[in-house]
């Protein structure tokens, strides 16, 4: 039987997904630059705006959603190329592709991990950004939802 016909969402696939998540999260936390660099970049961009434009609440609050979005996208871009490159360089990507498990599990896990270590910290930091830039409360929820989608999309883009 051909390999793709043998696929079902059995426990082995879920185990594999869990294993990948665990492995990559351990590596990411041991190499703090993976998540700190985009986060620091995001916060630097955000804090520069009040410094450059002055602390006028009305001006900052009208610019806030756009500024947060652009800063989040640029910060996500910093880490986009690293999704598969390390596994490719050290040969572990071969190990995944030779196994009989479906490759989309690997792609899904890598995208999810990338979002967890780059998108999620940015999403959390955007709460602070919203305060710094006087983001109106009624714009806050739509912005967080759009950032959630935007950062996920950036991680998906990085997997292309």
């Amino acid at each position, binding site marked *: *039987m*051909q*390999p793709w016909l*043998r696929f079902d969402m059995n426990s*082995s696939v879920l*185990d*594999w997904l869990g*294993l990948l998540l*665990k*492995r990559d999260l*351990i*590596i990411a936390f*041991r*190499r703090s630059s993976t998540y700190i660099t985009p986060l620091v970049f995001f916060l630097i961009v955000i804090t520069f705006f009040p410094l450059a434009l002055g602390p006028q609440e009305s001006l900052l609050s009208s610019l806030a959603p756009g500024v947060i979005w652009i800063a989040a996208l640029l910060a996500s871009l910093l880490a986009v190329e690293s999704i598969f490159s390390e596994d490719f*360089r*050290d*040969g*572990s990507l*071969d*190990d*995944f*592709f*030779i*196994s*009989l*498990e479906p490759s989309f599990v690997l792609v899904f896990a890598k995208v999810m991990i990338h979002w967890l270590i780059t998108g999620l910290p940015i999403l959390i930091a955007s709460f602070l950004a919203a305060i710094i830039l006087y983001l109106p409360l009624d714009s806050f929820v739509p912005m967080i939802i759009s950032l959630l989608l935007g950062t996920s999309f950036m991680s998906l883009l990085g997997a292309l």
Partner: protein
Amino acid sequence: MLPNLKVENLSYVRSEKAIFKNLNFEVLPGQNIEIVGSNGSGKTTLLRTLLGFINKAEGIINWLDEDNNFNEYRSFDCFYQGHQMGIKNLLTVFENLKLTHNAKGMSEKDINKCLERVGLYETNEMASDLSVGQKKRISIARWLLKDFKIYFIDEPFTALDDPASDLIKEIINELNQKGSSFVITGHRSSNINATLVEI
């Protein structure tokens, strides 16, 4: 006895130059194939072609399936070790084994047994602190995680001292007894019990 892998008239062409052509061999259970050739002769390319990482130019690669039929799709687990050994520097020796899909369901004790078999006792050491030879030992310990039908190993004896080379030969022999086969590459014959394929 049917071979697990049958290669017929396999050729690979890169930039209009034949890297290898008309290769024929069979990988029988418990028997080994040693692909010997100089630098750039296409040994790695051949392994990667067999495993489907690279598209072949011509020829037939047939795998035996559960119903004893040959087809072009592999339906059993194989092990591949390339020049990059898949070792993560930011993981410990133990984690480098435990966090691979082949170690799924294995106990800590069994994993440590694999590591001890290859002479690695400091299992909490970070892989980044190890020499190339020691990293290779982690990779060899991975061979023992599961009984694979065929092991494709690219230059297993490179960067190893004599005791480590002897250990590999010993492990290959042990795994052969269990019915596993090895397809290995090298610049010269390594004196393991294998059919030589020169490219």
